């Protein structure tokens, strides 16, 4: 059982790792690279806690093999803030109490950022459908949706 050598870019950093063929990208991020901000809630693509982007595309890292990451660019929650400067979504989530336990928060932030990059002015319905694959059991989603809409408005004003 030989391990596969993979060269990839994670949060802007050239990264190499070895993985078993059956290891998911999520396994690699968490267990090989220590990037535990990406969470596993189900392992079957139903909860979105493991959301990352691959070449700019939002995916569940539990539904992708680590070996597939060869040559790709991956962004995780750890790549969202710049130094000590939080992304506006991160700031707003704290300010508007858009998290309770916080386990779904990394995945939701990665997903919401991906939405705002594509659509800077989403409707409430668009936010709700975009985030339908990110389960949150604490908040009832209300404050999450409001925080995303509010951030979008702030970012539009700032640009």
């Amino acid at each position, binding site marked *: 059982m030989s391990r596969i050598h993979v060269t990839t870019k994670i949060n802007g950093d050239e990264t190499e790792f070895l993985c078993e*063929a059956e290891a998911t990208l999520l396994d690699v991020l968490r267990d090989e690279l220590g990037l535990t901000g990406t969470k596993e809630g189900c392992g079957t693509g139903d909860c979105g806690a493991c959301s990352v982007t691959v070449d700019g*595309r939002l995916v569940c890292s539990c539904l*992708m*093999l680590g*070996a597939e990451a060869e040559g790709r660019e991956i962004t995780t929650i750890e790549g969202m803030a710049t130094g000590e400067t939080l992304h506006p979504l991160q700031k707003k989530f704290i300010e508007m109490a858009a998290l309770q336990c916080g386990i779904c928060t990394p995945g939701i932030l990665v*997903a919401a950022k991906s*939405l705002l990059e594509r659509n800077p002015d989403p409707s409430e319905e668009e936010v709700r459908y975009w985030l339908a694959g990110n389960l949150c059991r604490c908040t009832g989603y209300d404050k999450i949706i409001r925080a995303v809409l509010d951030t979008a408005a702030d970012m539009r004003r700032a640009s």
Partner: protein
Amino acid sequence: MRFEAPRSVEEAVTALAGQTGAHVLAGGTDLLVKLRAEMIEPDLIVDIKRIAGMREIAAEEGGWRIGAAVSGAEMGEHAGLVADWPGVVEAAGLIGSTQVQGRATLAGNLCNASPAADSVPAMVAAGAVARIVGPEGTRDLAVIDVPKGPGKTALERGEFIASIFLPARGARSGDAYLRFIPRTEMDIAVVGCGISLSLDEAGRVTAARVALGAVGPKVILVEAAAEAIKRRVLDEAALSDLAEACSKAATPIDDKRGTVAFRRHVAGVLARRAAVIAEARAKGETA
């Protein structure tokens, strides 16, 4: 288990043909779930995404050829494809979450051979054709003939689907796909219905294909439903006949997602609603 990511169809076919227990990986959104659940224990996984053309949508003979590794999200962003086959694109777009959309493919949805696959009734209604490559060369097979039953396909050892072809969209034509799920997202279809139709200048149906999902061991093309609306405008009577034909054609089972009675009834309800959307699209109205 080994992992290979060949650069050509030939390499992929050789790898697949040369190894028992080999599985094709495109979007992986079904394969990885099965892997984790230990439903499959492959000896080899062949990732086809690095083969030229697999991630392309190309115009061909007035229609569209969609590479086997094109994701639902990529389809949704392709203006030409969306304009011609909105029903197929929407059906693909209903598979899983935004995240799953970033990976899931038409070919994968088809090869998974689930009776409830969302994109399959839409493709069948569209008259889509799968291009299959394998040790014996290339062959085309109508999408409806690919699944043989739950989890079973017509693919031979070493074969895989390289692309899906959606034919030229004629004038005054439209398609639509609707499914029923208990929530608004993230569920497997309890019933699905794809409809593609063409109208004459008077608004009468000249051609129609109606397909149902999740009400039999595989997708059902309901000829009687198409016949029920041909040469008619889609008035209440025509829609009722359509719905009745679909309910009658459905051969569902009771399971954790729905009952026989519910599925039969809703098959008709969805057919009627999908037909109205397809008709509006055929007339150039937005829907």
